[in-house]
């Protein structure tokens, strides 16, 4: 299951989606909206996705994982829309016969998702908002000015 969903991820049962009788370990990773970011108080987050492509790229990450680790099942779901603090933006489930490969594969899945899946986060504070992902460029601009 590789899906972009325009609504809450809470209540979606990914474990039974990925488990087979060969598996001894299931890991579910959830990224959740947190209160503090870059020293500011977050009011809420907004996620936007290029959904058709995001699902394709998430499925590609699933293929990469299965080529690299003996993993039975991979599921990745990401939501869009407005998220209150504590709500999950992404859920990744991995089932594998042994836990070592399950941990490695889950960490790879979230690292890779953050690199290549076309989804964007906007942080909304009480006094402003910003699309995340441009920090590096902004930092460079600041450095040039202060240099």
């Amino acid at each position: 299951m590789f899906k972009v969903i325009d609504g809450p991820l809470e209540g979606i049962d990914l474990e039974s989606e990925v488990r087979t009788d060969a598996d001894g370990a299931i890991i579910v990773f959830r990224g959740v909206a947190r209160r503090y970011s870059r020293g500011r108080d977050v009011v809420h987050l907004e996620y936007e996705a290029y959904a058709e492509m995001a699902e394709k790229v998430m499925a590609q990450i699933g293929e990469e994982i299965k080529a690299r680790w003996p993993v039975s099942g991979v599921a990745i779901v990401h939501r869009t829309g407005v998220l209150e603090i504590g709500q999950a933006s992404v859920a990744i489930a991995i089932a594998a016969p042994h836990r070592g490969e399950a941990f490695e594969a889950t960490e790879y899945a979230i690292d890779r998702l953050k690199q290549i899946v076309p989804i964007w986060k906007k942080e909304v504070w009480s006094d402003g908002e910003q699309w995340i992902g441009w920090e590096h460029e902004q930092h460079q601009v600041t450095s040039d000015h202060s240099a």
Partner: protein
Amino acid sequence: MTPAAQISVQIRLFASYREAAGTRSLEAPVSQGATVADLVELLAERIPALRTAPGLIAVNYTYVQPDFELHQGDEVAFIPPVSGG
């Protein structure tokens, strides 16, 4: 020299690009044989961020290089640095 035949591609814009352009999608006529780089030149007048803050570009859901040649009906997406997760 006869002018190159025109083709039409679908443009998708996201996040900061979408807000800068004021639209999620538009249709653009380009010359037959035009590349992704040519399309960026064409759109940069309306959406300067495509040149000043370049991201990645996908054609039909696959990331491509600037020299990728466009074809009639292609869906071209401008992808600012991603921040999912």
